[in-house]
């Protein structure tokens, strides 16, 4: 079996699967259950300042987006940071770390953007014996109205400043958790890097309104008739998270900055993709809140089987392997030509490839042959867009095939050159080099 042990920002854990800072890590009872189930680490739900704890709503805090068969594919929350007293949390953290020394225990913190506030809390957190801190610059709801969470994460100067304070007031590794509610993830990540962050973690949740109840015409979920935007997560946000992770992973200015991948990770495959995009470990919340903690075993088993099958001894052998394949659009080879091909022995004759191509794309799939129902790609019309592959209900029935060098593209009548050529040198580009 592959070695799943992980060292992330200097923090060791028996596997790369951490529970993200969220309701599943709010107290000792849950965290102990998670460790018993096999989770490699947790990021304790965000602590706030000493004093009266924050207050949560007591109506619905969550809402879900479902697939048609009621699989949860998107999830929204309006819960704030921990609503338990600081001293209770610190005492439990201390006890859990003592009882589970081999697991990673990182503490998430969110206090006002004042040096005194961070100076006050960091020694108390460090004193628990925990392995690191994660700065919550991400939560988009509630706390952001009070100048915390994503309100900080959207201003790179604040990120850098607070990160610097934290590096000054604690010896613990500092992980900066980033908000996706920005136009470009690189400036905030770079700010964390400049501030001395040991790692970044992303993404936090995305601003969201889950829906409208069509009977009452109220926002969903509503607290007695009113609702507020929440933070969106779950399988549906994975592509957004992966883009942001990749943006950081391939930025030369942040080379070597450890990334903890978060965002819709549900299966070992999702985790492996994040690792291949450069993540040192991953954090999970919605999947645990959907299925319970037992999935840790399936995640570990699947990732281990995959690494074995690929001849990779450990996670580092996978980390970042997909990053070189991600480039700007202007680097794509415009001489590369693909055509869709329908495997007739697998085709169930649903005709969806035909109708979407006919109605919305390039009229490149025929519907009949000799008067009979039959679907076939017409290479002289196919631009290789992959729409038919995307809508086909049968796996591997429609596949894309590259034309070899020397072949003639029946659509353009041009010979495939086999030479790499991108937009930067294309004759149609007025700014070509």
């Amino acid at each position, binding site marked *: 079996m592959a070695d799943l042990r992980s060292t992330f920002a200097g923090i060791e854990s028996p596997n790369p699967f951490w529970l993200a800072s969220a309701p599943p890590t709010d107290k000792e009872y849950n965290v102990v259950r998670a460790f018993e189930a096999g989770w490699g680490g947790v990021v304790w739900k965000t602590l706030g300042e000493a004093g009266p704890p924050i207050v949560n709503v007591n109506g619905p805090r969550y809402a879900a987006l479902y697939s*048609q068969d009621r699989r949860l594919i998107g999830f929204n929350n309006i819960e704030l940071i921990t609503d338990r007293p600081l001293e209770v949390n610190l005492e439990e953290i201390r006890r859990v770390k003592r009882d589970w020394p081999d697991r990673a225990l990182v503490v998430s913190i969110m206090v006002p953007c004042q040096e005194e506030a961070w100076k006050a809390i960091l020694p108390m957190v460090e004193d628990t014996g925990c392995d690191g801190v994660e700065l919550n610059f991400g939560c988009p709801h509630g706390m952001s109205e009070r100048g915390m969470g994503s309100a900080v994460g959207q201003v790179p100067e604040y990120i850098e400043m607070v990160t610097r304070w934290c590096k000054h007031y604690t010896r613990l590794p500092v992980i900066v958790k980033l908000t996706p509610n920005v136009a470009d993830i690189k400036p905030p990540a770079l700010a964390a890097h400049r501030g001395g962050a040991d790692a970044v973690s992303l993404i936090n949740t995305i601003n969201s309104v889950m829906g409208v109840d069509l009977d009452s015409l109220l926002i969903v979920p509503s607290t007695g008739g009113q609702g507020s935007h929440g933070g969106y997560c779950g399988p549906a946000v994975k592509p957004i998270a992966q883009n942001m992770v990749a943006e950081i992973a391939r930025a030369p200015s942040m080379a070597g900055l450890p990334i903890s991948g978060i965002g819709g990770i549900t299966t070992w495959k999702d985790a492996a993709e994040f690792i291949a995009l450069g993540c040192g470990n991953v954090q999970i919340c919605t999947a645990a809140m959907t299925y319970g903690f037992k999935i840790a075993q399936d995640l570990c088993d699947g990732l281990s089987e995959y690494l074995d099958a690929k001849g990779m001894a450990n996670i580092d052998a996978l980390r970042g392997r997909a990053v070189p394949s991600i480039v700007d659009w202007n680097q794509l080879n415009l001489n590369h030509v693909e055509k869709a091909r329908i495997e007739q022995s697998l085709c*169930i*004759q*649903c*005709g969806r490839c035909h*109708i979407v191509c006919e109605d919305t794309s390039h009229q490149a799939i025929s519907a009949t042959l000799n008067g009979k129902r039959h679907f076939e790609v017409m290479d002289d019309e196919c631009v290789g867009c992959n729409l038919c592959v995307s809508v086909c*209900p049968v796996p591997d029935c429609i596949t894309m095939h590259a034309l070899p060098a020397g072949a003639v593209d029946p659509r353009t009548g041009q010979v495939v050159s086999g030479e790499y050529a991108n937009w930067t040198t294309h004759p149609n580009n007025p700014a070509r080099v």
Partner: protein
Amino acid sequence: MPKPDIQAGRLTDAQYADNFGDAHPPLTRAQALIEAERCYYCHDAPCIQACPTGIDIPSFIRRIGEDNPRGAARAILEANVFGGMCARVCPTEVLCEQACVRNTHEDKPVEIGLLQRHATDHYFSKPGAPMFQRAASTGRRIAVVGAGPAGLSCAHRAALLGHDVTVFDARPKPGGLNEYGLATYKTVDGFAQKEIDWLLSIGGIELQCGQALGEQLLLDDLTQRFNAVFIGVGLAGVNALGLADESANGVQNAVDFIAALRQVADYSALPVGRRVVVLGGGMTAVDAAVQSRKLGADVVTIVYRRDQAQMPASTYEREWAQLNGVTIRTWSVLKSLEVADSAVVGATFATVRETDGRLLETGETSTTSVDTVFKAIGQTLVLADPTLATLRLRAGRIEVDAEGRTSLPGVWAGGDCTFGGQDLTVEAVEHGKIAAHSIDRALATSPRAASFNRVRRTAA
């Protein structure tokens, strides 16, 4: 031979209730949503082509999934006004569900029939505002003879198109086979009449029961009194065995037994034999055999002259019979009946085999004790009306063209009384619909929309 043992009240009240309740319970909402999700919403869907009435199946299923059950019912009822009954009785396994593309890799089609029932049940439980609005009155009058699926389908469509329709039926109640010819457990809680009440609510349809063609009604008279006539009288005659003892007590028509079951209020009042033989291989045979078992008969045997695959009853129906304890005896024909004290007590069967397409007796016979023999070996068109008898017939039924026109101008026909098809309810509905549009075109006082271009399928 043992004495005949035909008696009522063999079972407890609870057993009757269980046996004659809904044989195939409807989907729950949760089940319907999950099943609806399986539909791929095919382009030019094969299931639509396979449906004799051309229901837009992907649309109605999508509407179920989108929480629009009334819209789902609309998609069904626009194409098939008997979509509720067809959801219960269609042999979907050889129609829409056989065409489902899910069969290719899964061998498990979308449960189209059950989803159709889900949508129509939801609608009929609370129809609300009228779904169909009649066109402006044309002032033309149409006579429909027979208030079965063909006749009422024709009447509904003709009324929709603005004509005034009078429907005549020989029986006390409308519905034809829907009311008198289906196994009770297929359509419980008076659904057949409820559906017809709704169908007639469109307006413009006058119903006259107790009016039999050739008795109270004459086709000649109808053609003079009305602008057009549609004949949907079904097959009211029953084929005889041609045996001397056919009139013995205990020998009866399966269709009469089935009709009696549908009309009885108390199943414990219905007598049933202990040893029942059903002659025939179609749906009528299965319905009579299974219901005999459900009334408490000990031994029920369907006797068919060829092998099971050649029985007109579908595989699903044969398995349903066997699941209910009915034995299917194949390659056998009835040779003679044994009668004692005017009642049948035994039956002798000859084994046959097929040689060059002909059935020949092998010489082997066997005799079994029976007290009930149901005849289900086919029905015939009754030609009591002198004008009806002059119409061009084919294989004993009325010959019509692709629009349902008979050889007599002004007279259309559809359903089981016409030649062509498999005698399915859903085909009869389509026949009525097509004929209504044909009549509409023939009577048109103004140009008719060309949007309806369906024709009867050529004879199988």
